[in-house]
């Protein structure tokens, strides 16, 4: 009797009954056989593996890969696309350890010079010079400089961006306000106070508050720079407790807490994009790349309603950051020539025309080549934002981003390898201050300790 307490089939089943275990084992065997076949299949001789960040412009490139195969038959391209943070971690791990999974990697102006110095990526200058019609001199000078090491380009830009301020012209008109061409942060704060309308679900401004060195730290760094703050002085002493640094952070945190979007500590680029594009914010300070989504009727409810002006300033003449997604060839690639074929195809002036032809001028990768800004078709669709974007990119100077001199380069970031970790730790403190869990003073005290630990390792040596 006790045996029956245990539910289950009878102990001696007939032969006709097939247990789930047997079914699963059969399925597994089938999979093993299939897997064996797949493994034996192998790939073509010239297969390129390209690791890219899953942004819309890159997805267009994937959609157009047949054109590349037509032009370069015999080269088969496999894409690995990941979100920004995962892509960066994966690519860094692979390139730094010589993992060798990739023939082409998407990196940025943050990594290029550092990786070139370490010998992790190929010098592309000889290829640029030898490729007919590629026109390396057509790249925007600020971007070309930021991708060069000892005068040679080690990665080439797919698209470039700066930061600027988008504002709702209709709301400004209703309120009788006028946005100057080069606003100051004080003016922007006043506008935000005026236009903040929580009852109707419209915040005065949207600013990133999400932790991450590429999230809240990017816009905040530009504010710090123009307020006269800096991460380090020329002796690599951390300066996060300087009054200028503190006033910039206090300003940013107060602005977003008082007149920013609800739940700002969890807001990144994506959240601000969805809020602004659905009409829930009167202003948004962020990457110039926002325009391709904001002016796309498929995803935006505010098409044609926005004006764009230069990044707000305080003590500097300009403050927009400079950032560019670029393609590089890891030193471990076994197909370097074919890798360059692909890199040059995706960053060639002809590629811009191809995207314009297939998808329209609003989807071309902007900001990397002067010729794109000059194209008639681009000027037609991008009238509202092309010029502010071009000026922002041209005026960005990553080598002298601050009021007082600094030993590092970079505007939205500090161009040292440790910044990925340090920036993220500091951003967590800032985000906590935005959430109201800590004060700006406490956040900066802790941040100063992180920065000092990194700065100490640089003192006494010139590692710029």
């Amino acid at each position, binding site marked *: 009797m006790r045996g029956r307490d245990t539910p289950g*089939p009878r102990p001696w089943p007939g032969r006709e009954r097939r*247990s789930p*275990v047997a079914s699963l084992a059969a399925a597994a065997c089938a*999979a093993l056989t299939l897997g064996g076949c797949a493994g034996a299949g192998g790939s073509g001789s010239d297969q390129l593996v390209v690791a890219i*960040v899953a942004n819309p412009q890159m997805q267009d490139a994937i959609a157009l890969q047949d054109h590349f195969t037509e032009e370069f038959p015999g080269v088969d391209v496999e894409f690995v696309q*990941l*979100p920004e943070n*995962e892509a960066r971690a994966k690519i860094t791990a692979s390139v730094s350890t010589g993992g060798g999974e990739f023939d082409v990697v998407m990196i940025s102006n943050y990594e290029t010079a550092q990786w070139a110095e370490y010998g992790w990526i190929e010098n592309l200058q000889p290829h640029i010079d030898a490729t007919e019609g590629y026109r390396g001199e057509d790249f925007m000078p600020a971007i070309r400089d930021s991708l060069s090491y000892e005068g040679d380009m080690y990665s080439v830009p797919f698209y470039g961006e700066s930061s600027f301020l988008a504002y709702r012209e209709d709301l400004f008109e209703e309120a009788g306000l006028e946005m100057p061409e080069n606003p100051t942060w004080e003016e922007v704060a006043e506008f935000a106070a005026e236009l903040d309308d929580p009852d109707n679900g419209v915040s005065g401004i949207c600013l990133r508050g999400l932790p991450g060195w590429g999230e809240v730290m990017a816009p905040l760094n530009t504010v710090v720079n123009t307020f006269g703050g800096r991460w380090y002085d020329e002796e690599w002493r951390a300066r996060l407790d300087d009054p200028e640094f503190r006033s910039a952070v206090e300003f940013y945190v107060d602005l977003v807490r008082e007149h920013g979007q609800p739940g700002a500590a969890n807001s990144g680029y994506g959240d601000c994009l969805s809020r602004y594009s659905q009409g829930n914010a009167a202003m948004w300070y962020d990457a110039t790349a*926002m325009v391709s989504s904001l002016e796309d009727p498929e995803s935006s409810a505010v098409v044609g309603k926005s004006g764009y002006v230069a990044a707000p300033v305080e003590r500097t003449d300009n403050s927009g950051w400079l950032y560019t997604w670029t393609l590089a060839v890891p030193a471990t690639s076994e197909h370097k020539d074919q890798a360059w074929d692909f890199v040059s195809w995706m960053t060639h002036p002809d590629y811009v025309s191809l995207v314009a032809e297939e998808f329209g001028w609003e989807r071309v990768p902007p900001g990397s080549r002067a010729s794109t800004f000059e194209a008639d078709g681009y000027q037609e669709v991008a009238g509202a934002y092309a010029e502010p974007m071009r000026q922002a990119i041209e005026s960005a100077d990553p080598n002298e981003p601050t009021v007082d001199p600094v030993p590092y380069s970079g505007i939205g970031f500090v161009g040292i390898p440790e910044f990925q970790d340090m920036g993220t730790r500091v951003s967590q403190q800032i985000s906590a201050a935005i959430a109201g869990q800590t004060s700006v003073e406490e956040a900066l005290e802790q941040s100063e300790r992180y920065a000092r630990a990194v700065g100490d390792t640089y003192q006494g040596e010139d590692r710029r």
Partner: protein
Amino acid sequence: MTATHDRPAERVPRPPRAAERPARRPLRPRGLSGTALTVLTWAVALVFVSPALWMVLTAFKREADAYTDPPRLLFTPTLERFATVFDAGILPHVGNSLIATLCSAALVVLLGVPAAYALSIAPVDRTRDVLFFFISTKMLPVVAVIVPLYVAAGRLNVLDNIWTLVLLYTAMNLPIAVWMLRSFFLEVPTAVIEAARVEGASLPRVLRSVMLPMMAPGIAATVLICMIFSWNEFFFAVNLTASQAATVPVFMVGFITSESLYWAQLSAAATVVSLPIVVVGWLAQRQLVRGLSMGAVK
């Protein structure tokens, strides 16, 4: 003699309207408390299922509709996002995930059943230490071992190889499987095994013909849990694969973008990707419920 053929005295009498139900179904409590319990059960179920339901709903939206505030329940459904998912080439990734999931589950059963038998029915020396060793391998966060694993896989030239994931998933699931299977083995009455021995059955015969049928629900539950873990595993997959061996979770995150709206396309991908596990779970639900209620998670 007649007494032994009687029905068990503790059997609860049938409720009046139970005729249409299978006779073995558990019986519902009657009256107001029964209704309240039913309502509560459904409410809890709804709370648990609602994120998944919302995901399915979002998959049929346009991107702009997915981001409306307040969220919109009425919208014109579209299949465009699903088209995007299939155009992006989901099938090779599904193949990789199937290989990784099924092969690792099969290996786990092949290794786990004898191990659990040896640790329960026929205890070996220092059983407790062995069991503790098994579970201790789960105590180290995986992030701590990823660098050595990555470097080792690179040196052995097995990066971006699906068999690397099969091996890792087997190692990842084996301790849990052994613990679960052991608790199921302990439920098997020793009298049955002794009876089979007395009848002259050999050990393999006892395992195959006596233990396995009784253990089937437990093994099914174990396999399903291992399959869910392997199917959803992201960390090893994203770090150790690239283009050839990438599994569906790696494919899925490719729809997350930092410069555009993506909730609808991600939801469509997630809906497609969860279907196989939902189907397997549905097919095995009876075994699963029995398995979970008889053993480890009781």
